[in-house]
């Protein structure tokens, strides 16, 4: 299997606490990996290290075989902006921008033109069922709609990997499932891999693979083979 993203022997400590204590992971294109585990187990730290937000104290993360630990902060920022997409809990949209502007933001920040960025944003908003809401601001959207905008923002620049940190944490079960369906379908269309951190078993069950983290180590790997 050709890994888009791979991690070998990841170690991350906070003082005496071992948030990650030797984690190996391989993620291929189109893969959907759910990271589960109790609070404080290290799952969000794993997401941060995999996405280059945090530097590992030991081990390495590879994107298409290239070690991202060798990149400086600017390089890792560029990587996050171009190769990765992010969906956060509550969307974390920019309150002042409209839905289409929020979705277009990563492309604009990558230096794409206004027309191209907004065009891609509108396309993804439409695919995610948000036609007619492009000019609304986050405060004028429901929680589920705001998360769809966040998905559009994560997908608009065609990332290789989408990282989702508790993306349904602020939604009810039904809306959470709808959002998950939208995310998985959109990722399937683009061939992007998804790494999703969740403590919601129903959401984890939608992933192709599940890894359970306990005390900074992978306690269990489950290949469900089910998706969408």
């Amino acid at each position, binding site marked *: 299997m050709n890994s888009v993203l791979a991690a070998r022997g990841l170690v991350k400590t906070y003082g005496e606490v071992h948030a990650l204590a030797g984690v190996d992971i391989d993620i291929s294109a189109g893969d959907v990996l759910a990271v589960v585990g109790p609070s404080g187990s290290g799952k*969000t730290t794993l997401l*941060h290290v995999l*996405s280059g*937000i*945090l530097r590992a104290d030991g081990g390495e993360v590879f994107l298409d075989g290239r070690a991202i630990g060798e990149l400086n902060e*600017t390089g890792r*920022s*560029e*990587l*996050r*902006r*171009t190769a*990765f*997409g*992010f969906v*956060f*809990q509550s969307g*974390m*949209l*920019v*309150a*002042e*921008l*409209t839905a289409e*502007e929020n979705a277009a*933001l*990563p492309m*604009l*920040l990558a230096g794409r033109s*206004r027309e191209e960025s907004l065009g891609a944003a509108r396309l993804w908003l439409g695919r995610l069922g948000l036609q007619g809401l492009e000019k609304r*601001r986050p*405060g004028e959207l429901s929680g589920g709609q705001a998360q769809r905008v966040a998905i559009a*923002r994560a997908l608009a620049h065609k990332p290789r990997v989408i990282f989702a*940190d508790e993306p349904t944490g602020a939604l009810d079960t039904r809306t959470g499932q709808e959002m998950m369906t939208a995310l998985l379908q959109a990722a399937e269309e683009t061939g992007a891999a998804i790494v999703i951190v969740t403590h919601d078993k129903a959401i984890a069950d939608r992933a192709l693979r599940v890894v359970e983290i306990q005390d900074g180590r992978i306690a269990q790997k489950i290949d469900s083979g089910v998706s969408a």
Partner: protein
Amino acid sequence: MRIALAVLRRDRRSQVATVLVALGVMIAVSLVLWLIAAPNGLQARADRTAWRDVHGQGDKGAISVAVNWDSFDGKLIGRFDVARNEPGDVPVASGIAKFPEANEVLLSPALADLVRGTPAEKLGNRFPGRLVGELGPEALKFPGELIAIIGHDKVENGFRAAGLQGGAGSYRDDYHGMLYLLTRVGLVVLVVPCLVLVASAARLTAAKRERRLAALRLAGASPRQVVVMTAVETAIGAIAGSVLGVLLAQPFSHVTAEIPWDGGTWYPGDFVPEPAVVAAVAVLAPVLVIAAAIMGLRRVVNRPLAAEEKRGVRSWRLLLIAGALGVFFLGIVYAQQTRGGNQFTVVLLGLGAVALALVLTGPVLTAWVGRFFVGRWRRPSTLLAGRRLSGDPVAAFRGSAGVVIAVFTGSMALTMLPGLESQVPYRDDTWKTDAIVAEQVTHDVTPLRLATSAPIVTMLEGKVSTGEESDHGTYVIVGKCADVARVLNRLSCQPGPAVYAPSKLNGDVFRSSGPHDVVTANLPAQYETRPFNGNGRITAVVDPELLPSVEGHVSMVGVPTTPENRDAVHTALVGTLPGVQLVDGELRGLYGDTLMADLERATVIGLSIAAVLGGIGAAVAAAGSVIDRRRTFGALIAAGTPIRVLGHALRREVMLPVFAVTIAACGAGIAVGLGLLVLARGLVGHGEMPLTPWVVAPVGVGVVVALVAALACGPVLRGISPRDYAAE
């Protein structure tokens, strides 16, 4: 209250906000105390020097006093030639050890030192007599002031007075009330940025607090509980800041005392405000801050869900500017037609109203600027800034308010300064700069001729008229042209007797106007008129051959000097013609230059304070807006947004409204400055109103200050971690 204290104990951002509130209040309190004490300083000087006001005490009095200003080495010397008119005690003011009898002299300590270190013929001989004491600080305007009280048997040209003891002094009378007006104007325009700074500090992290309190309201907290929580959170910083501000005001007043004004520095005690005023400011400042914080939360208190609502501003706010300018110009008209304690009240109210109106209308212009850029953005930073400006113009403008007021103040000051220069009293170039002229001379000038080898020009002043009551006449001097031209500007002579005037004199009756017995004479029916266009007080010069009957009468003496003999001539004039009024270029220059230097220094200090306050306010507000959006910024950084792009957006957020609103502020400043110039011209009685291109310079300075302020919150932005999106 316990929740509020717990929040302060645990939340680092709330702690930072509290520290910033304390700093803002501290700066504002110490500045307000300083501003309030500034008129006190002028009043303290006026009180100490009230004994010098010997005018208008009537024809009867125990003593005669001639007040003159002299100069030495570029420093003004105040001299009081006194003589007893009747026996008995003469009351003297505090700081004057005794009334000096004939041949007794009292000198200020600085003048006594100067006399001791200077050859007598250059300085000491100007004060003939035995030094019987030194003047105390209670009788001096400022430390180092050069003052002499010289006792004589008799004083010519003196005013009669009951003693060397004035009543209640008032600096309001100085420079025709212009300084009184200017200190009040300074007070108003600097208090507004102080209030803006305090408001910015009080509103710091307001968005976050709003969300927290809205959540508490939704969880069942009563409006009163929310208000108490807000009050406690804010009060801790505000009270600490107020106490520190009062403590800081003391050393601050000592620094202020070192700033020269009107020829010298100050005594430290001059800038100490009354305890009641200190107490009032110390209490009012925290109350205002707490009130501002509570007022800011009234939406959440009333409607908890309002925390996430959009906030717009109404365009009618623009009318406030017109209304405030209307009040201001009404005040100008009122002040021109009124005298007394309330003369400037409406002007100052109008001025404060204009400054406040600028603060209130700023958000409208900010929203317009935001909408403009939202429609035309090309870069994400412009989009982010434009949306922020149009989405929450009140919050976006808050940081710029202080800078806008500074620009308003700067444009106003730069509009006024050139005009004030033309209005400064004592700008008179009647006489040549190197000439020293003694006016009101009644003495025999022979001792003077003996005391100095310099040429002596004798003149008689008077008026030429038709002789009718209604004809006020033309002010002339009688003197030989070749001699007079050595001391009078713009006079060029030709051989033969003539009248030098702009045109033929109206009338032929000459009447002297000096202090001696009036002399009258008639000009001949025929005489030659030669051109003379003096721009001073003297309109015409008449050759004495045309008025032979006044030959030998003298009321003015002029002496052309060289740099080498100037002090000696001065000393000879003062020594041989005691009590006369000396007019010389150096003295005139000293008066005018001192006042202009004072005004320029005060302007620079005032504008610097306004700019620093504005900059601090902008930096505090920008930092607050970053703290409020920490999670959003954290998410953007996590998603790969370079911090420089966010920094760029932040700078645009701060600078775009500043640029737009400062143009309006500059216009308002020019309008108000012109209005104040009109008023000052009315007070002084003359003056021009030149407008230079420099009046728009504050706009550029304001934008730079805003840029520096935006750059200053760079560390706050860089302190945001990509992981902050998950905070709270």
